[in-house]
């Protein structure tokens, strides 16, 4: 038998039908739904007189539009409110399980799926959201889909897809203290570019990956899409299984034993071949800071904004010139000399309990710098928030001058009231530094939670490895 990759195994175990050109019908086990990309899909379903194929496979939650401040009065913006109400109505009409805005379990869709055990190894997981790659951390085949595909999965429980190529990103060795999964993700993107993974499913492997917690693996897989890969994944090991045991949607009793036995097979076989292999030495990875308007515009914290002479071609020179102008930065500026106006700790990339603990460990006993107008912490879910409060993390943040908010996507993409004003510069733990992403004219620098907290205290970027 030929050695198979994890991706081969996940793909082959879900093929319903395959055509001669390789176009396949893939069965979908878990369909996560949020309010932004589903209304038109439900509308299409209704117009065609169809119903969801398997309603039990769907879990819905509003996350993009929800306010992160007091929710007792509902959502002030009538357009946001209508979108969330539309989700509520669609879920009620079709009997879809939904964690509504004021449910303790509400949160960012990519945080609550794993937290509930609704994401399991061996599953195919889709959601109308590109960061669905997050769930690959559990050795699931998980990727984002468009709204037409959301409707397709609702109606047929299947997706029309073609198998991607397989890439292995291998990170061996030990990370330096203060260097995180976020830094691995940004370092990979810096190395292969935002299109480097296009057409591939990425498996992250190597001793540095195995040493990561599930939270870290989720951060890494979350950003596979920023490297262009729709799906990222990590093989099952004890860390995966320990995380899942006892979660509300996890199997129990005899089913649990059977499931674990199967899950243990979800890894690439020895000698499996990949279409591409990228290797990084964990010890070489520095805390990363993006300087521009694409996640690939990234350098180590001790580095500088690159000079045009370093650009690889005319197109990149043009992109960099536009990025300098948009970001209000000059070539060769030292990253540590860049002062910030706001700090955002949150998003589906970095809002889990481990992220908040790491940021709190930096903020403890310190004060947010005077030049920082707003430093906010937005937990990924109501349960993350409750756990953090149980551990007193909220108090550490508030004592240091951070705002402690309600869970949601918040200022990662500023669909709710949380946003940057034109020209404001933000240290953000989110995943995209595109123009206007956090508010029109806003300037985003992507960093880890530790680096964001350290920047909040210092008022500019600092090397968290030297942080006292």
């Amino acid at each position, binding site marked *: 038998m030929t050695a198979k990759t994890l991706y081969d195994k996940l793909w082959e175990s879900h093929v319903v039908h395959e055509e001669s050109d390789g176009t396949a019908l893939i069965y979908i086990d878990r369909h996560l739904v949020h309010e932004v990309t589903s209304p038109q899909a439900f509308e299409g379903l209704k117009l*065609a007189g169809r119903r969801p194929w398997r309603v039990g496979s769907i879990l819905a939650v509003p996350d993009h*539009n929800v306010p992160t401040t007091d929710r007792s009065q509902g959502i002030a913006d009538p357009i946001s409110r209508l979108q969330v109400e539309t989700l509520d109505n669609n879920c009620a009409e079709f009997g879809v399980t939904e964690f509504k805005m004021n449910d303790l379990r509400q949160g960012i869709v990519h945080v609550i799926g794993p937290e509930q055990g609704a994401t399991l190894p061996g599953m195919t997981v889709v959601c109308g959201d590109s960061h669905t790659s997050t769930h690959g951390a559990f050795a699931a085949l998980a990727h984002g889909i468009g709204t037409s595909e959301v409707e*397709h999965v609702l109606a047929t429980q299947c997706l029309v897809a073609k198998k991607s190529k397989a890439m292995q990103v291998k990170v061996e060795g030990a990370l330096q203290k203060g260097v995180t999964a976020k830094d691995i993700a940004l370092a990979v993107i810096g190395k292969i570019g935002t299109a480097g993974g296009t057409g591939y499913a990425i498996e992250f492997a190597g001793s540095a990956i195995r040493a990561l917690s599930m939270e870290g693996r989720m951060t890494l897989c979350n950003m596979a899409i920023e490297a262009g890969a729709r799906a990222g994944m990590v093989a099952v090991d004890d860390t995966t299984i320990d995380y899942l045991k006892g979660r509300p949607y996890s199997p129990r009793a005899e*089913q649990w034993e059977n499931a674990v036995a199967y899950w243990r097979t979800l890894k690439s076989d020895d000698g499996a071949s990949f279409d591409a292999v990228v290797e990084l030495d964990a010890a070489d990875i520095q805390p990363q800071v993006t300087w521009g308007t694409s996640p690939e515009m990234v350098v180590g914290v001790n580095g500088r904004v690159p000079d045009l002479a370093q650009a690889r071609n005319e197109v990149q020179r043009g992109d960099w010139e536009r990025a300098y102008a948009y970001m209000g930065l000059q070539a060769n500026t030292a990253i540590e000399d860049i002062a910030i106006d706001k700090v955002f700790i949150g998003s589906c990339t970095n809002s889990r309990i481990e992220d908040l603990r790491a940021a709190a460990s930096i903020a403890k006993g310190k004060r947010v710098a005077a030049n920082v107008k707003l430093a906010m912490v937005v937990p990924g879910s109501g349960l993350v928030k409750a756990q953090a409060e149980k551990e007193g993390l909220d108090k550490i943040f508030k004592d240091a001058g951070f705002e402690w908010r309600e869970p949601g996507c918040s200022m990662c993409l500023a669909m709710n009231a949380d946003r940057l004003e034109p020209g404001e510069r933000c240290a953000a733990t989110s995943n995209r530094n595109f123009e206007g992403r956090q508010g029109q004219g806003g300037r985003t620098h992507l960093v880890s939670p530790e680096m964001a907290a350290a920047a909040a205290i210092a008022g500019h970027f600092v090397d968290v490895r030297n942080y006292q």
Partner: protein
Amino acid sequence: MDSFTTLDGLVAPLDRANVDTDAIIPKQFLKSIKRSGFGPNAFDEWRYLDHGEPGMDNSKRPLNPDFVLNQPRYQGASVLLARENFGCGSSREHAPWALLDYGFHAIIAPSFADIFFNNCFKNGILPIRLEASIVDKLFDEVAANEGYRLAVDLEKQTVTTPSGESFAFDVDAHRKYCLLNGFDDIGLTLQQVDKIKAFEGRHRIKQPWLFN
């Protein structure tokens, strides 16, 4: 979905790499629960000088004269010429909805982001991958010739310039079939109901915990 067979259209160039879906349609317009009406807000932050919000009368907003699509010579364009990794970022299908509503039916670039590429086919837009060197040449020709048009033939899988030079492109057989006929996938997939049910039955036996 409208079918796509041939197109002879005015070409507009967007000369920057990694154009993301946040740029194609900014997030504030994603609050709509409709599929239509996104065209006036395509490239909103580049296209207008003010800040756009849903519900504004876009015809009264100040246009950015420096943005290429605002130039008179590109009005009415239906072919968008772009650079590498076009459509990266979010999975929002609002991006192809906005481009289609704006009037683009074909997009030519050296490479596209996967999810965007896929979303185009679901909406009757043909994304065409051509070699970077050919795209470079087309950018030069567009710049040099006002009123520059390209002829796209999906059946023959060719893009032809006004001088008669023709470039072949690849497209998956399934996607080509759907696009030529204007078929949407759901109807086709539902012809396989028996296979789906049979698969589901086997899957349930192997991994019953997926069906709890």
